[in-house]
């Protein structure tokens, strides 16, 4: 960049800053508009409560706002952010510590715009950029559920430990201005109702992009709908690689049929994979409760998102492998992994997933492979029944080097072509993660 251009740019920036400063006080604390601003509380319709409960399932509110063994929605989940630790808040209708004093409009501003009463901005750990797409009807139902279907619980919120000045909330308003849309989902007339329903759930309440869409420098999701190529293209978050949900052969859903997607979201497993990591929570708390037609809609929509062969690489094909190679990774695989995943890597579908062709063995990001090996899987609870089989944790049995060796073997065998895993990467994740609980954890909503 030439000096002149730099000066010009700087000038514009200075002007922008002045304007921004002038507008900031207003902007950063203003109450966004809500269609419900004039709405009076109506009498409670029980069907609205159960509809709202379903929207809460679609939106997976419980995942963050409930802790196992504690009152539903009383908050408390600790979330590590780059700035510090924040805790999910009490969203029970308790008047003092929860959201009991919220009007429908207050509720709407919080859920769809990330603005609490008084104008305080929520951290975007709350996925309001996605929830913004929720329809007015769903917001109204959700509000009814939280006000009338959830027991009030007196549980003061835990303040975050983010230090000043990073804990100032007003910059979030600017962030919102750039990254958080405010429009509800608008159906695409070019697509049918099923597709549109799927798009609505995926982009809106399902907030799939929170994990599956890569984020930019400002920690923003790079795309919020199918108009952007990065949308649901796979991302690294919290020590897990959430794979692509696009038509990518290796790292996405190209090899999955629509019924297989439905089965995966409904039962936690199919011929290709079993839920694990963060997805196990999403399954336990949310996707399995979705109605069949909604799951079909999701599948239809996801199958419409094109893949990108340049990003995805050479399409995987199964290759027979010498299962008795005399290398440490192969030995470890044979003794530690093959009982479930098979010497041939094909697993025991639909209970033990194949590792041949698994996204964790094909993706550039190896975090999921390392994480699940170190920490095992949490229990998958389908229709209230904990799984018959779970992945053990190997962190106490295998060294960083041994894990790197066995994963390098897995990622280079049976046609898999993920990169080799470095022991340092294992050590890093080992330090940041904890083993999954072997106890079934069920988050109650009522």
């Amino acid at each position: 960049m030439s000096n002149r251009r730099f000066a010009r740019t700087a000038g514009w920036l200075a002007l922008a800053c002045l304007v921004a400063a002038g507008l900031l006080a207003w902007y950063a604390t203003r109450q966004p508009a809500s269609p419900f601003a004039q709405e009076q509380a109506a009498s409670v319709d029980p069907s609205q409560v159960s509809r709202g409960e379903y929207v809460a399932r679609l939106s997976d509110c419980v995942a963050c706002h409930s802790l196992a063994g504690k009152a539903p929605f009383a908050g408390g989940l600790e979330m590590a952010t780059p700035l510090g630790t924040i805790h999910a808040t009490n969203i029970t209708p308790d008047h003092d510590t929860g959201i009991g004093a919220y009007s429908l409009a207050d509720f709407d501003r919080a859920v769809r715009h990330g603005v609490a009463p008084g104008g305080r901005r929520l951290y975007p750990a709350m996925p309001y950029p996605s929830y913004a797409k929720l329809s007015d009807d769903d917001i109204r139902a959700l509000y009814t559920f939280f006000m009338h279907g959830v027991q009030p619980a007196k549980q003061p919120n835990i303040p975050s430990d983010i230090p000043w000045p990073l804990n100032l909330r007003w910059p979030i308003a600017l962030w919102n201005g750039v990254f958080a849309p405010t429009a509800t989902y608008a159906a695409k007339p070019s697509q049918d109702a099923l597709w549109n329903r799927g798009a609505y759930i995926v982009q809106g309440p399902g907030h799939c992009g929170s994990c599956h869409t890569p984020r930019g420098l400002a920690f923003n999701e790079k795309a919020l709908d199918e108009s952007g190529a990065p949308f649901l293209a796979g991302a690294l978050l919290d020590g897990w690689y959430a794979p692509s949900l696009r038509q990518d052969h290796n790292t996405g859903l190209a090899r999955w049929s629509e019924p297989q997607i439905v089965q995966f979201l409904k039962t936690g497993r199919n011929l290709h994979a079993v839920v694990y990591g963060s997805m196990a929570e999403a399954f336990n708390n949310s996707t399995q409760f979705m109605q069949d037609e909604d799951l079909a809609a999701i599948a239809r929509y996801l199958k419409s998102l094109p893949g990108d062969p340049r990003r995805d690489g050479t399409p995987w094909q199964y290759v027979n492998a010498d299962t008795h190679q005399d290398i440490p990774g192969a030995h470890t695989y044979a003794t530690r992994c093959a009982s479930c995943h098979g010497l041939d890597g094909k697993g025991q579908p639909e209970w033990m997933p194949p590792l041949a062709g698994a996204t964790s063995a094909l993706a550039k990001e190896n975090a999921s492979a390392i994480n699940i090996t170190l920490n095992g899987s949490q229990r998958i609870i389908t229709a209230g029944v904990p799984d018959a089989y779970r992945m053990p944790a190997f962190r106490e049995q295998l060294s960083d080097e041994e894990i790197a060796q066995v994963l390098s073997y897995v990622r280079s065998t049976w046609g898999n072509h993920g990169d080799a895993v470095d022991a340092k990467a294992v050590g890093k994740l080992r330090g940041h993660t904890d083993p999954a609980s072997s106890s079934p954890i069920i988050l109650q909503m009522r």
Partner: protein
Amino acid sequence: MTTRYELPNLSLDAPVNLSRRHFLVSTAVGALVIGFGLPLGSARVQAATAAERGTQVPAFLEIRPDGSVRLLSPFMEGGQGTHTAMAQIVGEELDADPATFIVEAAPPGEAYVVMENGMRITGGSMSVRMSYPTMRRLGALARAMLLQAGAEQLGVPVAELTTQPGRVVHAASGRSLGYGELAARALDMPVPDPASITLRDPSQFRWIGKPVKRLDAYDKSTGKAQYSIDLKVDGMLHAAVQHAPRLGMTVGSLRNQAQVEAMKGVHSVHTLPGAVAVVAERWWHAKRAVEAIQVDWQEPTADSKVRAMPADFSSDGFRDFLAAQQGPARDDENEGDVAAALAGAKTKVEATYHNQYLNHAQLEPPSALARFNPDGSLEIWLPNQAPDMFRADIARRAGLDPTQVTLHSPLLGGFFGRHFLYDSASPYPQAIVLAKAVGRPVKLIWSREEEFLRDVLRPVAVVKFRAALDDKGLPIAIEAVSATEGPTEAIAGKQGEKLDPTALEGLSGKAYAIPNKRIAQIYVKGPAMLGYWRSVGNSLNDFFYEAFLDELADKGGHDPFELRLHLLRDNPRLTTLLQAVGEQSGGWKRGPYTAEDGTRRARGVAMASPFGSHAAVIAEVSIDKGQVKVHQIWEAIDPGSIVNPAIIEAQVNGAVALGLSQTLLEEAVYVDGKPRARNYDLYPILPPSRMAQVHVRIVESGEKMGGIGEPPLPAVAPAVANAVAQLTGQRIRSLPLSRYTFS
């Protein structure tokens, strides 16, 4: 049903009317046999009871027509080889080849209280050493009865008869009769006066002291051996439980009882103290259903009868708490004047040591099978190390008289102290309730996860050492103050009037000639429920003491092996033992040195004198990719005298394995009041790849017989720790070594 444990349920005071020639059907041999095994309640047995211990021959022995001998052992077989040892001991005097024996666990009852300390337990490495003369005499009494029967049958004076293995022989006439042929007649013989019996001269032993083959080797190599978990009775249902996440919590409401009751195979859902249970047609159904129960667990109440586990308990935090304890301490040993010696010493050494909680992790998950009979009596099968104590407890729980309880004690799939009477850690109280509730026999198995949740733990201790060296660098005073709780104290829930010997053994009782010593305990009642773990207090305390002794050697400029020899200079037995292990290892060399394969190695030595025996260990270690690799363990052990050297070698191997396991990697970690590990994935036990080569030397000093199951264990950890310290220059003051970083 038929099991191999079919002994009539009879007690000392219940008169019975059974044919003496009653039929026993045993699946163990699959044959119908006639025996002269008399039920325990018979008049003859009662008469004998009044006499001496272990003289009621018919209560123990049944000789079958084919000459095979069925022996009811007072001790449980759990891998330690006691059934084979009993066959050797009895067979030696009975003059019957141990290979012809079928040995099973005897039921509860006074007749089987054969230990010289008046107890009957399988533990403390006591079985053989505490019953050896009694069981020999038992065999000799039986032989005398067979001789008497032979004399009658052959019509010759008994003095003219001798025996060969399994036969009564009349040399003069060349006639002989097999024991099996004489069994029926021998039945009518009175048990001779024990005083009239002469025991075999040990120089004539054919089987005692020899590497006789284990009786159970074949059955255990072919899946035929049956453990509690394998048993089945007609009409039996299966049960599984889900325990409260923390001991002491109680069951609130079940959120989904109806859903669980509707699950496939489910018979019924039950609420138990601190647990919920599902009874089902198959265990797998029971297990999946019980895991599905959503219980609102309630915090423990103040009147909780079990040791309530606090929600904020962590094992690391508790260790720090122990380390902060200042007393008061109670002395177990106090000789000389430690304070004065320390005050006047030129060189003082201080160090703080600690160990870790451990699980038993025996391979067979606990189970219990309970059946109420139509007459209201209770029949129960369970793994146990103390049948009389268990029967009394079972009777109390079931509201029955002990005579109404038949307790069967199958083979133990490992025990290591797991199967003593631990109130909160056994499935049988639950099995009794469930069998009563459903009116059918119930077999309850704890899943591995439930076992790790409720197992009692090997205690932890933080020990503060102080020692004084004289101007030659030799220790003249040692003080060890241990903040801990012994397992006996934990089970009692309080400290007794006397110190719990299992808390300090291994710190106390050391033979080194250090003139001033003080060994004391600060009793700290902990939140975790404790139990006995193979070699009990010695499993931790010998590590502390022997590792600290190496610190003293280094500080004083002495070789640790030479220092030990010096401190044992007036103890010929231990001097011999230490020299034996040195010699066995090719001569003591501490290292570090470079081995043939290019690895840098060092050796450590340690000794221990637990359970009446003495052991000396040398370990050879290297560091491989940051982990300690133990190449060799040389272990010399002096149990006084022995019964089976092959089994001793196996027991030493087993003790070394457990010793290495606790040294290298085992640790029960608690966070938020819960065990982090609920299975072997997060509680690794020694895998084959980390086993050392083990070289055993048995030193028979001829002193009083000592134990074998536990004594080889305690010196392993300090020998390894001392070797690692020598190799790395890093003092090892805690276990396991997986907590250390080595380069």
